[in-house]
């Protein structure tokens, strides 16, 4: 379940934090062209064993959020403020070597391109063994045995032979499996998957998603899935956080986001995708315009320049006043100036038009 922090403080007396709790996380980078506010005040929580999907287009800040959790932003020259609590430990205040000790053991990450985490010069078995030895004091032979087990586990055929293969000798789907195996080898509590299937064909994508959800059940891993594909979100996520222009704009359980999205951006995303389960519309109904530049974000609502409904808000508040991320229903937060009834009406109308096609 996801909740805003203040509300949580009021509602619950127990001081215990949820498994992952991100509080007011902001990341900025200084560039030649000015300060890039990559993410701005992200606050969310995630229960142990759940899957959270972070959805957004390029430049929305979804990958930077993941990198900030993994402690990778500072080395890239970014400024991080806010708090990241993982299993009772605050990560943002830690020294880089302390974060490094957690990376790979407590939390692990898989990427879109497997070659970004596999070294092309070393055999895949040796790379996984190295990952084990970096965090645990066990013998090399035992580590190799464990590696072989893991390769079988993630579905590498002829693992006895493939353990000595180089990455280039494997297919894309197979490399993805090796990378997942390497990420899970030290039983991390948190697995962050950044667009894990974007580079794969649909048939292989189906295999990898199945693998991630089986492994998640088996190891009880908490997963953050970063993606732009609303199709795979519907498949695997418990909760969904929609990001736009570096801010969370809508957060809720997966069923809430798909059945009753209220933020115009989420609605726009849902109406932009061509769907196979619906009657063919003559034209798609995309969001107009282009995403904002992260150097020069609109002063009010970040989505205002592309929003079809901002003229319905009084006093042009969308242009000048930043909306807050506020609860609209249990388990559902929305950042929008429109009154709740109006948002629901718009959402209903849009969804009726979309579904109307299937009647």
């Amino acid at each position: 379940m996801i909740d805003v922090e203040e509300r949580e403080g009021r509602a619950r007396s127990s001081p215990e934090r949820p498994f992952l709790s991100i509080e007011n996380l902001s990341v900025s980078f200084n560039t030649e062209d000015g300060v890039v506010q990559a993410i701005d005040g992200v606050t969310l929580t995630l229960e142990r064993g759940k899957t959270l999907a972070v959805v957004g287009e390029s430049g929305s800040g979804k990958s930077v959020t993941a990198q900030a959790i993994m402690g990778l932003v500072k080395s890239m020259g970014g400024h991080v403020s806010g708090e990241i609590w993982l299993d009772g430990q605050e990560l943002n205040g830690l020294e880089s070597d302390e974060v490094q000790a957690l990376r790979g053991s407590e939390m692990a990450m898989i990427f879109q391109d497997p070659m970004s985490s596999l070294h092309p010069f070393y055999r895949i078995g040796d790379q996984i063994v190295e990952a084990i030895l970096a965090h645990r004091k066990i013998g090399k032979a035992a580590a190799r045995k464990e590696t072989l087990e893991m390769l079988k586990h993630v579905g590498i055929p002829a693992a006895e032979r493939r353990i000595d293969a180089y990455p280039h000798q494997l297919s894309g789907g197979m490399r993805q499996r090796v990378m997942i195996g390497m990420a899970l080898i030290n039983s991390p509590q948190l697995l962050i998957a950044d667009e894990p299937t974007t580079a794969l064909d649909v048939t292989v994508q189906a295999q990898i998603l199945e693998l991630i959800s089986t492994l998640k059940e088996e190891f009880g891993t908490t997963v953050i899935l970063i993606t732009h594909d609303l199709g795979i979100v519907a498949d695997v996520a418990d909760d969904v956080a929609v990001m736009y222009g570096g801010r969370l704009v809508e957060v809720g359980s997966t069923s809430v986001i798909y059945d009753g999205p209220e933020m115009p951006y989420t609605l726009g995303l849902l109406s932009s995708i061509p769907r196979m389960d619906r009657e063919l519309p003559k034209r798609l109904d995309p969001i107009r315009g282009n995403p904002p530049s992260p150097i020069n974000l609109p002063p009010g609502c970040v989505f205002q320049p592309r929003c079809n409904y901002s003229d319905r808000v009084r006093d042009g508040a969308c242009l000048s006043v930043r909306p807050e991320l506020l609860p609209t229903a249990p388990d559902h937060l929305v950042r929008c100036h429109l009154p709740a009834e109006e948002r629901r009406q718009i959402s209903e109308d849009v969804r009726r038009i979309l579904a109307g096609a299937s009647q």
Partner: protein
Amino acid sequence: MTAAPREILRVTDLRTYFPVRSRGLIPRVIGQVKAVDGISLTLNTSETLGLVGESGSGKTTAARSILRLIKPTGGQIELDGTQIANLSQGALRPIRRKAQMIFQDPYNALNPRHTVGGIISAPFRIQGVEPPGGVKAAVQELMERVGLNPEHYNRYPNEFSGGQRQRIGVARAIALRPMLVVCDEPVSALDVSIQAQMLNLLKDLQEEFAIAYLFVAHDLAVVRQISHRVAVMYLGHIVETTTRPILYSAPLHPYTHSLLSAVPVPDPKIQMKRTRIVLQGDVPSPIDPPSGCVFRTRCFQAQERCAVEVPPLLEVAPDHKVACHFPIAAADVAASVRAGQLNVPATDPDAPEHPVEGVHFIEPGPPHG
């Protein structure tokens, strides 16, 4: 622009092989990658043929061979009445204005040192065409048509976002009013909201200029949105080809079935009910393709005969060709629809009013939601 559709492209038995050379001081040709191995297709004006398949299926090689960006090994390509498969580059040049291409990567398809105006006016310069009113006016009109600000004529590609760059690519492709535009994954590098804008733009341009598209893509939902007919490729072969409504509601080839069932649907309720056909493994190496049917190593229907005999692409019904010894029967399709394995749209505006008899008959899918 309401002329009757006429055939502008006929590809017959197109083959494109790449030699595999041995290592060493004097490389010898030791084998061949049959990237495209005998495909045939036709295309009319104002029509879109979707060419789908996984990576390594040969769809991009086929598209590039048809435009003669790669020299095909064999077969015929007839573009608007001219055989172009064996023409020299010089003889091809005047023909190039009839067929253009839109590329996948809007970042690499544009020269970063040329202005947008220079990029879009290149076809006029190269072909020696002087449009009435001058090149600059024509280019600015094109920019306006594809949704770019004509005042940005002197800007460089790096000043534009991915979606805008793709619009530049589209403007360049349609500059000389080609009959055929080959689109190689034109939207797969774009964000979903921009992708939808681009699909709408391509559709509008087709209506306006009667362009024929050969639309190469791996995303079946995108292909459904834009195509009139679809051909499914696997390891250099077309395994099934038919009209869009039939391909998406009553496919016969097991590969088409598994592709359709692998596409995730953005609705958790539908997703929960579906049982997927998950194919095992990857596409085999085209250097050493399987004997008999190329798909048999991953096929859930495969039997002994498939390893021995290559299934020919047969017309099993009007406008429906399939290359399979054991195509999935209509009854099985209906059963898998009922079991939720296939998601079939309830109705398709272009579907024949009475379902074609025989293999195409299929029960309407379950109501969604």
